[in-house]
């Protein structure tokens, strides 16, 4: 019998892996991949609560909005990464210290 907790555990594993990627990667595109993992884990939670909770579709609607925001976010973030690469010739975020005094 698969219960709500099973899905929540999968989602927790996805979230932790995404967080690990965001914390440890130097490449900005890798960090974006970690953020996508985190957003996906949140979506799994929303849909699981929609399935096992009160039985309405609000969780799925929220998940659709999260997907919309993820698409907008990745477009703008890649624009920033490309601009950074053009300025500094590197995709690594720890070398983006243009504002350091």
């Amino acid at each position: 019998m698969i219960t709500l907790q099973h899905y929540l555990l999968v989602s927790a594993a996805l979230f932790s892996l995404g967080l690990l990627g965001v914390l440890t990667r130097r490449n900005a595109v890798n960090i974006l991949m970690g953020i996508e993992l985190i957003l996906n884990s949140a979506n799994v939670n929303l849909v699981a609560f929609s399935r096992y909770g009160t039985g309405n579709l609000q969780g799925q609607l929220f998940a659709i909005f999260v997907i919309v925001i993820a698409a907008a976010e990745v477009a703008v973030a890649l624009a920033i990464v490309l601009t950074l690469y053009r300025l500094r010739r590197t995709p690594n975020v720890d070398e983006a210290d243009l504002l350091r005094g």
Partner: protein
Amino acid sequence: MNAEAAVFWVFAALTVGSAAVVVLARSLIYNAFALLFTFFGVAGLYVLLGADFLAATQLLIYVGGILVLLLFGVMLTHKLYDLDLRAEVAQFAPGLIIAGPGVFGLLVITILKTRWATGPGRPPAPTTAEIGRLFMGPYLLPFEAASILLLVALIGAAMIVRRRKDA
């Protein structure tokens, strides 16, 4: 073990295993293609949860859009003769301590200790028509706001990467 459980464990293993490859593999191309399987696994979990429309949306937008954009990002931020696209790692041990025992341990304890208020649940049924009615009815304002957000993101992304004539 019944069929639902078997399918769940297959998709859960696919999702978490490929997510581990995304985070731990040393090649950017491996990371990107492992992300493909993570998205497929999550879409499978959506199908198992009775969210058919959301699973199709996941495949169309994540695999068709976001993953392709990320691959463009990988390709455009490296020199063409740069054959081994190494994914470099910094501060791995502190990150592992925070994400592993810190966040994951805390989440697992919370999930297992909490008595979740599960309701009657939703039997698997087609959701597309109902989602459309909700978007055109009670959720019309967020729907329109999301479309404005997409337009702003589109214009903003084009403005940011544009080469200025004076610079």
